[in-house]
């Protein structure tokens, strides 16, 4: 040890008592409130939330502008010809969004859960390769996946799958499987193998122990991942846009993207708000189910929902 390390230093308590005034004293005071950090935090939160709140409010704007308020009206929701509710294309897009997200959830979550359970216990080179590819599909930027899938459906599978709902669904699922896998595996790590082995000791067959011991323990993670997958699939527009066929197969997110680029009216705000509501409903249902099944394991809390 060097001399300086051994040299006595004033303890924090000793510093506290004299408490020199002025800016330097404030800077030195180890017990000062972290005002600057707090201001930045609230500033960031305001920056991230307030624009969205304003956008929601402007869906009720009486004028065409998305930046100056001209009074309250429901015209962009229900009254105008090109309002969210009366525009045939927008309504169709809404249905398409919900259809795609729901089907994606129903296909991707079971496949992902099964993969997570299997890969958690299967060792070997094939298993680690499969796991690697799965994680790779999670991190690779979406535009790369989107173009790759577009090429596949255009050339390799051109006779099997037309661009449109089927292609969009296949593309969405192959992206979303990894979400379910990651959430469920996090849960599997915290569960451990004891319950299952106890089940087998009590006479359960391997299939029974998965179905009657492991799956119930995984319900919270399964519902959390279903909510995440639904909310993410309904928001997706990168993969879905490349795989869109006729205009009627474009979901709301793609329509919003197109409208936001050209001449946005508050109808875009209304459409975006309705998607926000749909995601929120999915999250609330997921969270309620999660709480219902995880009541005993409250300690893990929101860990699955905060995965990303």
């Amino acid at each position, binding site marked *: 040890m060097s001399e300086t390390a051994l040299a006595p230093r004033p303890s*924090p308590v000793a510093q506290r008592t004299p408490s020199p005034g002025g800016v330097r004293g404030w800077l030195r005071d180890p017990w000062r409130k972290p005002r600057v*950090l707090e201001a*930045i935090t609230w500033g960031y939160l305001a920056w991230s939330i307030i624009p969205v709140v304003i956008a929601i409010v402007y869906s009720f704007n009486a004028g065409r502008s998305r930046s100056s308020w001209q009074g309250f009206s429901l015209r962009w929701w229900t009254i105008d010809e090109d309002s969210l509710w009366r525009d045939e294309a927008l309504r169709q897009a809404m249905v398409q969004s919900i259809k795609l997200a729901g089907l994606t959830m129903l296909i991707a979550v079971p496949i992902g859960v*099964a993969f997570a359970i299997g890969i958690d216990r299967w060792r070997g080179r094939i298993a680690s390769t499969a796991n690697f590819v799965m*994680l790779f599909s999670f991190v690779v930027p979406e535009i790369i996946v989107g173009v790759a899938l577009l090429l596949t459906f255009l050339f390799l599978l051109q006779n099997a799958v037309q661009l449109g709902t089927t292609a969009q669904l*296949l593309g969405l699922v192959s992206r979303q499987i990894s979400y379910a896998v990651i959430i469920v595996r996090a849960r599997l790590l915290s569960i451990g193998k004891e319950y299952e082995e106890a089940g087998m000791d009590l006479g359960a067959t391997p299939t029974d122990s998965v179905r009657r011991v492991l799956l119930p323990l995984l319900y919270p993670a399964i519902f959390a991942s279903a909510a995440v997958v639904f909310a993410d699939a309904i928001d997706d*527009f990168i993969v879905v846009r490349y795989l869109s066929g006729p205009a009627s197969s474009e979901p709301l997110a793609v329509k919003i993207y197109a409208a*936001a*680029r050209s001449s946005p009216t508050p109808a875009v705000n209304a459409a975006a708000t309705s998607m926000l509501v749909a995601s929120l409903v999915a999250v609330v249902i997921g969270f309620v189910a999660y709480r219902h099944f995880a009541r005993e394991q409250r300690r893990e809390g*929101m860990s699955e929902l905060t995965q990303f």
Partner: protein
Amino acid sequence: MRSDTVVDEEHTPGDAVTIEEPRRPGPPPGHEHATGVWYPRWFWPSFTMPAIAWLFVLFVLPFYMILTVAFGYVDPIFQNPIPVYEPWWWSFDVFNETLSKIVGEDAIFTEAFVRTFAYVAASSALCLVIGYTVAYFVARYGGHRKGLFLVLLIAPFWINYLMRMYAWASLLEGDGYVNDILGFLPFVEPRAWLTGEHITIVLGLAYGYIPYMILPLFGQLDRIDKDYLEAGRDLGASPAQTFLRVTLPLSKPAILAGLVIVALPMFGDYYTNDLLSNSPRTSMIGNLIDVSVYGQGRIPQAASLVLILTVILLVPMMYYLRSTKRATEAA
């Protein structure tokens, strides 16, 4: 003797174990030395088969399709691409042409590539500074409001990225609220934000991706044992020294992971740019790809660009995958 047999039939506890077949599925003959619960060899692999089949057809094969189109031909008459599936027939004409637009003589893509790197670097740095501050504050000083902060920090994940960007763009319009506020402040001028300004894109990318930075940072900072900090203080370090020599090194893995998490999607981003600028002065690699996909006969160029982007991103992606693997193994 006789009474013993009767007892036997009534199953004394000791005998029951030896007489009855063990219920726990045992190892097959020849594997009796195996311990623990025994599963058939195919049992766990069979769970993964649907996902493996799915990913093979709809993830691995598509990656190969990028190669077949990038190294394929373009029909000289109809201008439609002809993929070449056999590697030994690959032609590198289209790919070399695309490459020469980036590094060769007719370097029309060079600017966009350089710009992408500059934007991503600036935005990631901004994400880190703001994200670290927020994560640090919530982890250290969140107190009983931690739950509220977490909900607010997670909220952007449930809001469509497009909607957030659209909402932000609405405020940046010429007569929007940002300019209204800037009009009141000294030293700053209202400006036309949405006409291809670099700062708009950098701010916009940061706006879009900060949430992805905060959560891993928060996760790590929240786990740091307060005892370490107190030990640092007890040994005479100032708050700044404690931060620099205890907190910062302990949060380094999360910093690197967070930087990769925000940088990867930024490299493939074209929509932020489309909503915030719509000017070729700010276009990025993602815009080049997106325009090529929809351009007549330019799909091979799109495939080549995607291939180049994938190669560029291979290192950060591998780094991220290795670090998460290490993290799960440590857990």
